[in-house]
């Protein structure tokens, strides 16, 4: 059990998958920023952010997601977010309307299939 946030990066063909874990908040979000923004390779078509294991996401974490979306949009890349239903993170992301910049999926496979095609 760790609440310290972490990022792991994996590649499914031309889709970069970043899996975030733990609590992404005002104190620790900054430490994730570079790794998150650096995950996309030149050859990638899209990025999937898997937030299934994220237990807390405040406005600084939200801004990090929007910054990621902007960076991807500048390069004509797509963003999908994987969110379990009914948790705090989903409520937060709905309030700030993250759906305006990313496709929301319930499973990683769905998300990869969506943006990878």
């Amino acid at each position, binding site marked *: 059990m760790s609440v310290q946030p972490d990022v792991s990066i994996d590649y499914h063909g031309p889709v970069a998958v970043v899996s975030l874990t733990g609590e992404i908040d*005002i104190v620790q979000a900054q430490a994730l920023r570079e790794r998150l923004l650096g995950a996309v390779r030149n050859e990638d078509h899209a990025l999937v952010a898997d937030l299934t294991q994220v237990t807390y996401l*405040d406005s600084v974490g939200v*801004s990090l997601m929007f910054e990621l979306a902007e960076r991807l949009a500048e390069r004509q890349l797509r963003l999908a977010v994987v969110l379990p239903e009914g948790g705090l993170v989903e409520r937060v992301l709905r*309030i700030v309307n993250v759906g305006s910049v990313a496709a929301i999926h319930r499973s990683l496979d769905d998300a990869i299939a969506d943006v990878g095609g």
Partner: protein
Amino acid sequence: MSSREAADRLRDLQRITDAALAYLPLEELLNELLERVVGILGVDTAAILLLEDDDSTLAARAAKGLEEEVERGVRIPVGRGFAGRIAATRQPVHILNLDEFEVVNPILRQRGLRSMLGVPLLVEGGVVGVMHVGTLTERAFGDDDTDLLQRAGDRAALAISSRLTERERGLADALQRSLIPRLPDLPAVALAGRYLPASAARLGGDWYDAFPLPDGRLGMAIGDVVGHGFHAAAIMGQLRSGLRAYALDGMTPREVLERLSRLLRQLEPGRTATLVYLVLDAHGGAFTVASAGHPPPLIHPPGGEPRYVDIPGSVPLGAARHVSYEDARCELEPGTALVLYTDGLVEQAGESLDVGLARLGATVRDGVEDLEDLSDSIIDDLLPDGARNDDAALLIVRALPMSEELTAEFPAEVESIPLMRRLLGRWLAEAGATVAEIDDLALASAEAAANAIEHAYGLAAGVVELRASRSPDHVIKVAVRDFGSWRQPRGTNRGRGLMLMEGLTDGVEVIRRDEGTTVEMFRRIGSKAA
């Protein structure tokens, strides 16, 4: 013995135990003592060697007729050679013919010594050094000679122990003071720590530490570096710093211990230490713990029986090249006392460890609520005469019961926010909120606090106050207040922060006054789904 001989002997003894010697500085006293011994016993050489801090080496400290011994800084391993044997056996040794004896110190042969007599310098039954005399011609020392030399040795030992302890005490106090941590002041959490140096006034390797982690949880450690003296204490200080560094990097207890073991092996191969490190979510009711061969923490639930935490068996830090430790997770109901200690607290000579552990359990069970008082009673019960041969450390933590209304103050810095939302979360849980309600209100309050911290004070230090209460119709009101000047939140972060505060609660009110701003948030619990 004739009356003349008896009178001479009495005079000799008086010269050796002369009270006036006490006024001399130690070096002069030892030299004067050796001078008198040479005269009284009619010997050619006399020397004093003292035990070093490592407990395994004797170093020449004063000499007559053997001055090179001191000048060259002769060092003799305990157990070897003439002086080494005296220290190891704590018995006088008499050598008639040095040619037939294993001599470590070449100066003895170079000087042409033939016969030697030596006695141990004893303080409270422990060896602090050796005093010896020698003759260039063969001499069979008698019991009277041995007796007189032992008296001179006792006089030297007395002087050495009082001067050493005086000097050591000053240094030890300074070092220990610098190593005893200032415990963090956390809302609704009580913490108390004790350190007892061994009465032999020697520094020990025990320590405790408690510090907030970036995620709002509390890191707690207690450890025991094997050995005594400044060296063990210095190693302890290095381990303590290493532990904090690894812990602040977000490592779990298991990972912290594995790295510390590697660190200790590099600092000093062969040195070992036992340690318990745990990460306590004081307001979340759980902790994660790993142990490196250290006695297990004791937990005492309110109104329940104390029990020792079941931690997987493990080896001390530094004991093996590749060690792995295990994390164990334990639940902790609010109000439970968690007691960490070192073996110096529970171990008594001639009794099994279980007896000491049972005694600690009983004292904690019958103990008072207040942790400072509880610590005092534990020390009184377990170490009524103070720590004797081993130092002892104790660290206790308890999440305090929540009151009907929550009030807490935090330094106005972002690092306060994780702790603040954990505290509020626990209060909300006790007020009957669901997990989703707790999550929403804690996040909304964290946003309000972030606003206050980023906009109320600029760069000046300040505080943020958190209050929470519940109305009879189950409406929770959380108020986050600052005492700075209002400035419109700016930047998209804070804009989204306001959005989240509004989206996660039933209502937000911002009240601006000259003396500061209060953000009030309301949420009915138990009826409305998020």
